[in-house]
């Protein structure tokens, strides 16, 4: 039964990949890659159960964390063209001595 669910999830990954290639706007691509990452987490857990290797769950947990952080980072990069946030000329703060 894990195999059935794995096949469903793999087909979903193919569909999401097709949308990521086709998608007219960049948000389509980000949504497709986010869905692809979630499906990757599911495939990792299912393969871990299929092959009776529970270590795969650690990888799935880590992949979920990285997927979320990566989606937010890519969105921020698309919005501001920089990972540091909006680029505004900021008044120079007085530098504290002895601080790097």
């Amino acid at each position, binding site marked *: 039964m894990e195999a059935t669910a794995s096949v469903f999830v793999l087909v979903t990954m193919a569909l999401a990949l097709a949308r990521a290639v086709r998608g007219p706007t960049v948000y389509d691509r980000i949504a497709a890659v986010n*869905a692809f990452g979630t499906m990757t*987490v599911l495939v990792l*857990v299912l393969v871990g*159960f299929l092959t009776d290797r529970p270590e795969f769950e650690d990888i799935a947990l880590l992949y979920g*964390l990285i997927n979320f952080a990566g989606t*937010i980072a890519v969105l921020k990069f698309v919005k501001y063209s920089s990972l540091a946030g909006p680029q505004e000329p900021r008044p120079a703060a007085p530098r504290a001595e002895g601080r790097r």
Partner: protein
Amino acid sequence: MSLVLDILSWALMVTGGVFCLLSGVGLLRFPDVFTRIHAASLGDTLGAGLILLGLLLQAGLGADLVGIKLVLILVFLLFTSPVATHALVQAALLDGLKPWTRDGRPTEGSLNPDDPAEDDAFIRDARDGGRR
């Protein structure tokens, strides 16, 4: 008892797989960004949640951390996936993309700053707050 658990787990996993498949089809075939993101979020929460619940019925909450990790993955997905979807939709709206409608008329909350008919205070606040 074990047979009942197996049947229940099988049903949950197949239902979750079908929901994942539906979200993939929607992601590929829906007409614009917002509807596609809607379809994708369906698979993120419902599909993943049902599959992980089905696996949890097999693993059980034993002392070998397998079930605990499944619960951790489930809780983490349920927290982060709607957050990512919300950020994605808000970024798309602030970028000026128009939600698709069947007859082509714009919806109430279009985020066009040049549109004089736009007087939705919530949308205006979101736009100004987003640009700050």
